[in-house]
């Protein structure tokens, strides 16, 4: 039986590092890239006698995320200890939320070939990150860097509603967009501030019971998520097809070999001995607190996209790109205040603006020119006072110097000639000079039309209004 006789079932657990300035239980900085063990204090080092004090911002971010994903925010949630030994876990336990997390039962929509699909979010909880072991600095010993210990994380757990690697990647991307929009996470998979574990199982199509699931740990790019899940699906199908059985285990994805391999089996599974953290009272949040956060929630990517298609009449493709990042969408709306041909505006965004940002760096928040200047340039192109090509040059110059578009046009002498008389004189001159070609054209060699346009434009040094040039040429050539 082929792969297509099987139905994959996938659930994701995402760990997102919160964008707070300080750690979850102490005042140490969360800045990335500091010298090893620089951002530490007795509390995050787990020295004897220290106690955790909760960072209020972490709770605010959790509520924010929960509300954005339509979760119920629990008025009372409980901190627990997850006990295990590891050199980079300074206290010998991780403070996390276990059976009573702060957010439960929300959802996130993705687009599939069959249409919109709702993925249920089972829970969101807060926890502290561990440190980092460095194994290659010395031949004889491993070193420990605890800068990351105590950095606040959100763990967002989906229900096993995903049915393919592509859906899993789409869900991850959608989730990342939401978190970045909320200002809760920087979405950086490479630095590990957004990472995921995947639970993957397969069942025969039509079956009602899920197959045995395997957990894939710590996958750190969208590409690897897809590869790891696809590999795991085919591994499990092959195993079942050859009469074998999938074991419950934890596996790691090896991106170099493109395979998953066993990390630990069910028999070696940890017993974390969870129990309520006695150093922290249960967390109570009030309606007022939740309302406060709700009021400050921004419009989320999906809602914004659909508004962009309806309000500005943009195609979904354009709306998706414009709304992928909040500052870009905000900037689009700011320019749209001054320039009402929204599709043309979108073309400039998707074409020129994003290209320049990509090639020359910078972001929409640090552009040198104003929204009004941007709109003025587009108006000039629309009116035909400069050509579209000249407009692009002017835009490049504005991007680099911040100069006024009118000034650049004047400086470079890019104004388009729209004086019908002047154009007619040039057209007449060109046709007179090339009587032979005119003959051929009239005899049916229509493909040389471009030659006339080229000659006129050349004579006018590129500034002839193309519409007028075309109109006059066609008239004179007898069409």
């Amino acid at each position, binding site marked *: 039986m082929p792969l297509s006789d099987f139905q994959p079932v996938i659930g994701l657990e995402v760990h997102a590092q919160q964008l707070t300035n300080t750690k979850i239980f102490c005042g140490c900085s969360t800045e990335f890239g500091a010298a090893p063990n620089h951002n530490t204090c007795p509390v995050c080092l787990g020295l004897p006698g*220290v106690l955790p004090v909760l960072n209020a911002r972490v709770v605010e971010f959790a509520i924010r995320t929960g509300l954005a994903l339509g979760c119920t925010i629990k008025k009372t949630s409980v901190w627990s200890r997850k006990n295990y030994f590891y050199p980079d876990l300074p206290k010998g336990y991780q403070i996390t939320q276990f059976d009573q997390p702060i957010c439960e039962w929300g959802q996130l929509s993705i687009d599939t070939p069959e249409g919109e699909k709702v993925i249920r979010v089972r829970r969101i909880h807060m926890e502290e990150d561990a440190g980092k072991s460095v194994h290659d600095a010395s031949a004889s010993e491993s070193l420990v860097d605890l800068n990351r210990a105590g950095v606040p994380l959100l763990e967002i757990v989906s229900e096993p509603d995903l049915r393919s690697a592509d859906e899993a990647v789409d869900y991850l991307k959608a989730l990342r967009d939401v978190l970045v929009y909320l200002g809760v996470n920087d979405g950086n998979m490479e630095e590990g501030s957004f990472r995921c574990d995947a639970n993957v199982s397969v069942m025969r199509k039509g079956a009602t019971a899920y197959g045995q699931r395997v957990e894939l740990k710590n996958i750190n790019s969208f590409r690897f998520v897809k590869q790891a899940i696809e590999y795991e699906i085919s591994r499990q199908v092959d195993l079942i097809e050859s009469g074998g059985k999938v074991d419950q285990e934890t596996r790691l994805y090896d991106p170099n070999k493109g395979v998953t391999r066993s990390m630990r089996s069910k028999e070696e599974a940890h*017993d974390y*001995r969870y129990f309520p953290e006695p150093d922290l009272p249960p967390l109570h949040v009030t309606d007022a607190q939740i309302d406060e956060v709700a009021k400050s929630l921004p419009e989320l990517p999906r809602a914004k996209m659909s508004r962009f298609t309806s309000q500005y009449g943009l195609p979904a493709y354009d709306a998706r790109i414009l709304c992928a990042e909040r500052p870009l969408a905000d900037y689009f709306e700011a320019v749209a205040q001054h320039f009402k041909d929204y599709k043309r505006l979108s073309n400039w965004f998707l074409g020129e603006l994003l290209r320049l940002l990509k090639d020359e760096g910078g972001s929409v928040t640090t552009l040198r020119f104003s929204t009004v200047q941007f709109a003025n340039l587009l108006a000039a192109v629309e009116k035909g006072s400069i050509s579209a090509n000249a407009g692009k040059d002017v835009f490049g110059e504005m991007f680099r110097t911040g100069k006024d578009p009118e000034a650049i046009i004047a400086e470079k002498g890019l104004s388009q000639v729209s004086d019908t008389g002047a154009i007619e004189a040039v057209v007449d001159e060109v046709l007179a000079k090339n009587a032979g070609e005119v003959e051929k054209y009239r005899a049916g060699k229509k493909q040389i039309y471009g030659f006339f346009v080229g000659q006129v434009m050349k004579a006018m040094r590129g500034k002839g209004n193309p519409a007028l040039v075309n109109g006059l040429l066609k008239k004179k050539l007898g069409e």
Partner: protein
Amino acid sequence: MQLTDLTLLELAAKLASRETSSVEATQACLARIAQVDGKVKAFLRLDEHGALAAAEASDARRKDGNPLGPLDGVPVAVKDIFLTEGVETTCASRILEGFVPPYDATSVRLLKEAGLPILGKLNQDEFAMGSSNESSAFGPCHNPWDLTRTPGGSSGGSAAALAAREVFGTLGTDTGGSIRQPAALTNTVGLKPTYGRVSRYGVISYASSLDAPGPMARTVGDVAALLQVLARHDPLDSTSAPADVPDYLADLEHGVAGLRLGVPREYFVEGMDPEVEASVRAALKEYERLGATLVDLSLPHTKYALAAYYLIAPAEASSNLARYDGVRYGHRARDTKGLKDMYGLTRDQGFGPEVKRRIMLGTYALSAGYYDAYYLRAQKVRTLIREDFAKAFTQVDAVVTPTSPVPAFKLGEKVNDPLSMYLMDVCTLPCNLAGLPGLSLPCGFTKAGLPIGLQLMGRPFDEAKLLRIARAFEREHDYVRRQAPI
């Protein structure tokens, strides 16, 4: 009379009137320690230098007319479970040998800020696990009333140092009776404050939900004065209470007329020493004579307290002690093969038998499949015990019981019988499970001359009333004036 025979408040008065100086008092303590501590072994470590420097600074302030507080210049000492910046802190365990903390426990900081020189670190049971001070990795402490006997535990050193008149006040911690039981066994006064009243920050955790740091001294007034320094909301401890702090000395002499004292039948347990029971009964009569009303009470879930305690405390301890793994500080086993081996050997070499026993008990109680049957059930029992007390306190102002069912026992007598050792806490630990304040004060002596303690338990944050009730009894008797024969 020697300077060290004074009570803490008497010394404070002499310092205030400049009859003596802090340096003199500190030197007197150091001399007394040099004289007797070889036999008592109350101190694990002296900080002679630090204490004298603090004393000099105190005298200088006094000279300038700027003392930091009413106890400025009074030398004290702290149990080795309190972190002291720059002074080795081991919690009486090999696993922390050589550990010099980079910060002070909040209580230590408050003592320093109030101008009290700290003489050194006091002996205790390892990680506060024990009731006889015999589980200290550095050898037992001896009871100054009879050097062949235990001073109790785990704050044995804190109690013995007072009884031996080596120091004027000490800090202890009480997880299941570790302040009150040694106080009872050494004729001193010990107060376990309401959970959350005194910060746990910088106190090495044994069982976080039960641990309560508190003052010990030779009189009720001395304990009240120390509590005044220590009772403070601490933003570094999330379980610290933001409650108002009253003036603990203000009502001290107001007596007990009109107060209602509960006598719970469940505390007069089988196996209780008859001399202890007789002393406690006599004390109750005394309270009646002083105008209090005795109320017969039942705290029906008392019989489950010991079992619940010995599940909850080890469970929390098994987690709290995981950080002693040899990776970052303290002892690390040498020549190990890989990480697991390093963990295993480090902890095997570093922890004593009682600590290992409790770590294993706790690990078992929390493990998957047993959590509901043990830990969770114990927490439910804890709630019932708390409710018993809450109900009792609708009828009475305080509950009066024996502190320890027996007077000081011989060193070595129970050390190989952990269960009988655990029974030493039977009267004190319900108070910890309920988070209430509890106090032990001297109430008599056995014919053999061993001290007997009376326990008072009160409503949450009602320490002032406990102190007042204790003082009413103390005023009528000379027990606190009796000196240990050393």
